[in-house]
């Protein structure tokens, strides 16, 4: 066989086989009963800014806007790169259950110089929509408003306190009407056991993620960073006409996000409000 014939035959076979395998995976993911299906509002998506690079891209992909509750006083804001940092529920014990071992620490020795044997792992992340974690964030915002209001009542002439109260009210309004209600609440390695704990498939999404854990030499504590493996959801061409192109303002809409058998999500429907 001449090199040209080999190139054509083997090359075409490679290209066709690769496409076939990829599309077969997609078909399998979208076949049968979906793993979960959830209706999200525009709050749970990051709307693209429409800068130069995005203006040259005629497709539209919407990153999921999800948050973590970092401790009892704060929740993170959503980012386009889908990174969640230091969730309160991801403590040392949970890390150990997820397979993160620490090298060099023995007995009761406090956290010190870290040399982790496993610094990154693939995990399954549980995302909760408008659940108790969001309610807690809302309550914290309400409490801040009440606290600032009482401080202002005690010092009615203070402009600083007046500004703080205004800021607290603004934050409460954003938490109630604008910020994402989607929170990462748990992670695990086994889908079946996670679904047993979180059976409501319209309230809990389970998606593949990467958990990065690293420490800084000489400092106590570890940084725990979670990243969804496929954070951007492509808007299908048939639904594209329902949404404006960035940099137009974010519209009000709901989107049905379905997660298939391979835990790969897709946008099934979009409704403008």
């Amino acid at each position: 066989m001449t090199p040209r014939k080999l190139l054509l035959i083997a090359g075409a076979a490679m290209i066709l086989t690769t496409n076939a395998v990829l599309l077969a995976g997609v078909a399998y993911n979208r076949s049968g009963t979906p793993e979960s299906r959830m209706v999200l509002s525009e709050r749970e998506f990051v709307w693209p800014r429409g800068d130069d690079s995005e203006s040259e891209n005629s497709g539209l992909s919407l990153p999921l806007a999800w948050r973590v509750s970092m401790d009892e006083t704060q929740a993170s804001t959503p980012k386009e790169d889908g990174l969640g940092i230091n969730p309160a529920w991801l403590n040392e014990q949970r890390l150990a259950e997820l397979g993160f071992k620490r090298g060099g620490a023995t007995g009761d020795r406090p956290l010190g110089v870290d040399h982790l044997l496993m610094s990154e792992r693939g995990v399954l992340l549980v995302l909760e929509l408008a659940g108790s974690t969001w309610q807690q964030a809302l309550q914290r915002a309400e409490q801040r408003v009440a606290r600032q209001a009482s401080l202002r009542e005690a010092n009615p002439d203070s402009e600083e306190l007046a500004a703080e109260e205004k800021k607290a009210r603004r934050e409460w309004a954003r938490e109630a009407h604008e910020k994402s209600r989607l929170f990462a609440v748990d992670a695990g390695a086994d889908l079946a056991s996670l679904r047993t704990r979180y059976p409501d498939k319209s309230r809990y999404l389970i998606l593949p993620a990467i958990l990065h854990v690293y420490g800084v030499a000489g400092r106590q504590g570890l940084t725990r960073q979670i990243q969804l493996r496929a954070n951007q959801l492509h808007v299908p061409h048939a639904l594209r006409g329902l949404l404006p192109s960035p940099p137009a303002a974010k519209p009000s809409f709901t989107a049905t996000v379905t997660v298939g058998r391979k835990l790969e999500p897709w946008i099934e429907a979009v409704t403008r409000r």
Partner: protein
Amino acid sequence: MHPPHRNAAQQRADDIQVFLTELARLEAQGIVRLSDAQRQAVTTHHDGVLAGLTADFDIDCSTSARQLSLGMRVVSFLAALALGAFVFFLYYQFWGLFGETSQVVILAGVALGSLGLVAWIQGVDPSGYFTKLAALVAFTCFVLNVILLGEIFNVTPTNHAILPWAALAFLLAYTCDLRLMLAVGICCVIAYVSARVGEHSGVYWLSLGKRPESYFPVAALLFTVPRIIPHQRFAGFDALYRVFGLLCVLLPMLVLGHWGSSSYLLLPPSRIEGLYQLGGFAVSALAIWLGARRGWAGMVNTGIVFFIIFLFTKFFDWWGDLPKWLFFLAMALSAIAVLVFLKGLRARSLRA
């Protein structure tokens, strides 16, 4: 005997030019003189050989042609990069206008069509410049095919996607005799093997730079390939495998020599850094020695470059606080010492 590849054909043409130049010199000095019949026979023979080689391989028969060819090689590489970028951005500009079925058909169709274009151009371009261009575009189209399908259907990224890319790059390299595509294929293999090694050790595959030792296994693989697969018909392929293999050892060592905490070894970072700095010197010196012994210029040059880099970074660690003039004097004297050593090595190889 018909040369197996273009490099061999070019070498034959260069040998003829050198012969004619030396013959003219000898005749001018009266050492030898060909008769008219002999001169005619030699000229007729050489003209025939050169015409055949030019027709088959598009070789350079003069100094000016050779200089232009070098320029054409650089330009064709830049043109290939620009065309690849053009295809990439063209896709992104217009893909959203089509439905998913059309997108799938267009992506696969363009990948197949570009492959056909490579095959056709190869048949009409003996020089290989345009074939290289078309091959890189075909590879780009296939990479985009897979990436965009993944984006359209929200497929979870996986390092297994690198395998078909590597396979196509190697196919293009060996069927079209293109070292550029071989380099691309080797880079894909490096990425895949180190990603798999990293994954087994607790590193997400897209973070494969976080554990430099993940590259050592693929270095061993790359050194082994030219030993078990003969490449007589492919000029420069052996050297590429060896150079990339050496880079997969020396670059991680350079990184680990200054960033010991990224090592798999359960030792204090400072000790790891010391070990890898010593190791870096040893491996680059070994590469120079082995390359000089076997006539592998790529190994020698790569080893020299990294030896100098290790040396200069060490100087900076030791003497970075010295006055600048003194620091650079030390660097210059060291470079001269290395030059003297290499001169001695060269003289020894000439005597041998």
